[in-house]
């Protein structure tokens, strides 16, 4: 069970000729996936993920979310869905409002029906998971740095223990170190808890390093849904989607042009590139 789109179409402006989402069919049922959703600005990525936790209802078709059939006419409660599918927006630090970090992280669980004590336990767990040290828990979230605030916001969704975690551009605005830490955090969550992580990203290096599956949207349609290597290996198609190559892939192609490297499968990450250059893996002799 997971999230399944069946012939879903949607448009924000009911009078607009072009739909924001055009006949979407998708299945997200496996555990432990790391899915990246790619596409140009305006291709419908945000709209797509807002259908995954029923913030938006489809105009046509049906989204099946953990057994619930969400259509345009759905009138039942949506809270269960919001608990099972956790959605973190861009700049999530803007959703913080409580007096203390812990209280803010407890907000979600409490809304989903947990008691004060139970919520506190889950909040503490989530804070530990995102790497927020105990001395921060009683502080006002607004006294923290931007990166820390973002982690509080993510903890606030994790505390409700969703089965699927969706993040819209989680690293935008972070500096390189913050970016790396956040992505490693997501990777840890995935491997330790088996949750499926879905992120909207524009960074091909993130895709290369973490993604187990890539979904590409173009003008509201799903134009690619599969592993990353075939996507990046077909340069023409990649360009037609308005997407770039990951840095390492670009380097690999350039070096191949100059005859300095040989490979069959396009290296997508630094590790793969190293192998093809017969370089010792990092951490060997330089530190």
């Amino acid at each position, binding site marked *: 069970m997971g999230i399944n789109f069946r012939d879903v179409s949607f448009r924000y402006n009911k009078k607009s000729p072009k739909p924001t989402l055009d006949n979407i069919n998708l299945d997200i049922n496996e555990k432990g996936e790391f899915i990246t959703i790619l596409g*140009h600005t305006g291709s419908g990525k945000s709209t797509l993920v807002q259908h995954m936790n029923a913030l938006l209802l489809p105009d046509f078709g049906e989204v099946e979310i953990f057994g619930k059939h969400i259509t345009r006419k759905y009138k039942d409660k949506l809270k269960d869905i919001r608990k099972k599918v956790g959605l973190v927006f861009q700049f999530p630090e803007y959703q913080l409002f409580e007096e203390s970090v812990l209280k803010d992280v407890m907000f979600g669980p409490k809304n989903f029906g947990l008691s004060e004590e139970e919520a506190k336990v889950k909040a503490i767990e989530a804070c530990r998971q995102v790497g927020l040290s105990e001395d921060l828990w009683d502080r006002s979230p607004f006294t923290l740095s931007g990166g820390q605030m973002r982690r509080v916001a993510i903890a606030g969704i994790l505390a409700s223990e969703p089965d699927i975690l969706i993040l819209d551009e989680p690293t935008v605005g972070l500096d*390189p170190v913050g970016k790396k830490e956040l992505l490693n955090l997501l990777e840890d969550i995935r491997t330790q808890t088996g949750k499926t992580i879905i992120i909207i990203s524009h960074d091909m290096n993130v895709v290369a390093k973490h993604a187990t599956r890539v979904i590409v949207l173009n003008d509201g349609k799903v134009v690619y849904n599969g592993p990353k290597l075939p996507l990046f290996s077909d340069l023409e198609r990649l360009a037609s989607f308005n997407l770039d190559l990951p840095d390492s892939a670009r380097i690999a192609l350039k070096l191949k042009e100059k005859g300095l490297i040989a490979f069959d499968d396009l290296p997508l990450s630094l590790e793969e590139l190293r192998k093809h250059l017969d370089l010792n893996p990092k951490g060997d002799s330089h530190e």
Partner: protein
Amino acid sequence: MSIEFRNVTFGYTKEIEVLKDFNLKIEDGQMVSIIGHNGSGKSTIAKLIVGLVEANSGSVLIDGVELSPENIDEYRLKMGIIFQNPDNQFVGVTVKDDIAFGLENHNVPRDEMIKKVNRYAELVGMEEFLETNPENLSGGQKQRVAIAGVLAMETEIIIFDEATSMLDPRGTKEIIETIKSLKKNENKTIIMITHNLEEVVFSDRVIVLNDGKIALDGTPREVLSRRQILEESGLAVIDSIQLISEIEQSCLPNKEALVEALWELTFAM
């Protein structure tokens, strides 16, 4: 216009000093990139130059003259800054109004204003959007309007304060291309503040800040090859630089060719 920091000490609060006894000289017409981790003091430098904050001690000099509350209004006429948040610096109700805002403040006569608005909107590729409202523009487009607004004021110093950090790759590319052509066609002093190493490769000079101090200062190639210091300063080393460093320390037979190819690639980005 040259910019100089002489023994500048500054902190937003009494306890934390962002810059301490800071010294820096930027020559007229140079393009300098200042990079560093969040909190390293780079944005503070920008604010000190345009006088949005005042140094606790030491002085900021423009063309040898110390900045003070008395002369800051006059010097601001010669400086333009583009900030990080595309929405929070867009003042006008339309693109045209926003580009004109600085000109209105500088008391430019109306006929001249109209000419400049049209010319600089075209320069940044936004001439079709003059009557568009900001909520119908992308981040990259809003930043281009901000650049047009600064260019229209025809200042001698232009500062880009993390102008790309809130943009997606397409928006970032638009801005970088605009800055590149600026550098090529104009003779202004350009300061680019960022935390992305890829963006500094076309500058004349790169300064790495770490906790309020200058960790590196040199040409892009000089600075980018100091991988360890870059990492210590909290910066993510781009893949090509990482490889260069590793290849140089290896015993690969064709390492010179590889390194040269990688440098070529780095500067072509």
